[in-house]
């Protein structure tokens, strides 16, 4: 226990300086058709940090995650994961896509979705054994969904769907978790449950990156922030970077100054 506390006390900024970078992108440009989604974005996510990606709609936040994962092709730029090429470290990444990106009437049960997270272990034909199920159940337990294991996924509420997606990511036993708006459209109880799990991941020295929309909770939930609006605006710790100036630069005139002041007092 003390050992872990000591390890955790080892500051994120120090680790960044010591070069321990969970995710590093540079010169990342992605275009959909003629329209640029991201232009020349560089970012360094230190290992063990909890980072919010912030920006207005259409700023390329989801695209940044997908390009970092290689799900969408990049026009130029490099992605390095734990200091190596993405393809060599892919198994250490877990991705939680937006809840709305799948058809929830798909004929599958909650536990089967979580087992999908173990595809690397199971491969094409290895049978699902008892320990696989037990691991999947433990992941569901962690998001408080174990009672729903044999439910059809179409019967879940939005918050429950999000928790199942998180459980699937937990089943991957990854070191870097990339989540696309995990708090979108979920109730307060689910939001609490999810943030508790994410914090516990950070306590295990894993790295968490979330596309996030609710500016009021940023200082509570995260220790770092990355502002983007097609280009990178700023990145750094909450204390130094979550400033009125950066918010104004990211959102343009759309964010009232009084609103920003409220956010600052929350810090």
């Amino acid at each position: 226990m003390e050992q872990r506390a000591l390890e955790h006390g080892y500051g994120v900024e120090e680790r960044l300086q010591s070069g321990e970078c969970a995710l590093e992108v540079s010169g990342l440009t992605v275009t959909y058709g003629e329209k640029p989604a991201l232009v020349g974005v560089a970012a360094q996510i230190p290992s063990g940090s909890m980072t919010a990606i912030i920006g207005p709609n259409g700023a390329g936040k989801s695209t940044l995650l997908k390009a970092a994962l290689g799900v969408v092709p990049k026009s130029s730029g490099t992605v390095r994961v734990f200091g190596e090429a993405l393809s060599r470290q892919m198994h250490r990444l877990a991705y939680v896509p937006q809840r709305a990106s799948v058809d929830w009437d798909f004929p599958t049960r909650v536990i089967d979705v979580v087992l999908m997270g173990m595809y690397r272990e199971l491969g094409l034909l290895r049978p699902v054994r008892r320990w696989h199920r037990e691991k999947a159940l433990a992941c569901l337990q962690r998001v408080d969904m174990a009672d729903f294991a044999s439910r059809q996924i179409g019967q879940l509420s939005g918050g429950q769907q999000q928790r199942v997606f998180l459980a699937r990511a937990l089943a991957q036993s990854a070191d870097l978790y990339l989540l696309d708006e995990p708090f979108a459209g979920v109730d307060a109880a689910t939001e609490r449950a999810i943030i508790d799990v994410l914090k516990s991941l950070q306590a295990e020295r894993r790295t968490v990156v979330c596309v996030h929309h609710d500016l009021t909770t940023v200082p509570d939930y995260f220790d770092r922030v990355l502002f983007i609006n097609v280009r990178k605006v700023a990145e750094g710790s909450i204390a130094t970077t979550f400033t009125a100036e950066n918010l104004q630069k990211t959102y343009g005139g759309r964010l009232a100054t009084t609103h920003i002041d409220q956010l600052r007092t929350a810090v």
Partner: protein
Amino acid sequence: MWNAFLEALLLNAGYNASLVAVGAALLGAAAGSSGTFLFLRKRSLVSDALAHSTLPGICLAFMLMVAFGGSGRSLIGLLLGSAFSAGLGALVVHWLSSRTRLPEDAAIGVVLSTFFGFGVVLLTIIQTMRSGYQAGLEGFLLGSTAGMLYEDALLIAVGGALAVLFIILFRRPLTLASFNPEFAATIGVRVRTTDIAMMLLAMAVTVIGLKVVGLVLIVALLVIPPVSARFWTDRVEIVALLAGAFGALAGYLGAALSASAPSMPTGPIIVLVGTSIFIVSFLFAPRRGLLAGLLRRRQAVEALKAEQFISSR
């Protein structure tokens, strides 16, 4: 008629009818289980474009074989031609929907009608040719099992078995790519390869089914069994299994029915039997069926009324 049907059902209606029934059942099993993943990936209609695109290939293969001095009737030759033009059709659909602003359904409509129209023109030309007079190519439109050979049935059996084997081997990547392609890509599934394999599978089933069901209706055999199976279960593997069983049943019963009456087209009868399975599933499936839904709603309303009655006293 009834006796003839029973005979055909029990494989007593003669060698040819039995061959057709067994062949149709195998084809139905392959089509039903392959169609499951197309249905879940919401790409069922692409297979219709594939099927209609086979016609020019069949005609051109016939012309080519005749030009080289053959009779033009070799089934393998015709099927190779059909596979070639179906592949071309699929590529055009893919190109149109990924490189232009055309949505996939419009691309399907364009390809389907263009290829089919071109095919019908070629077919007409062939029928005016002396050697084409009795080519019997129009049998590929709606299926014709008269004169089906042992080799033809063998082709269907082997093709069907390979398709089913493929699905069993690749059920996990197929499921992952259908449910959540973006996630699948991050966990080591080659989504593009899987999609292409899914299309090739649909193409293979279409091509081997041309002779029995015909290109106009083969899509029904890929779509109706999985849609019916979906009513009975909430698990992918069981949907695929049931769809295979429903497809086999439709193929077998349909072939037996069409064998029991003179000049009944096999394809349409098989499709109608499939439709009956769909209607039964849609009405009577225990949880997702129409009646079960009505019953549940009524029970809920009754329960609510009872509650209100108690609390009002």
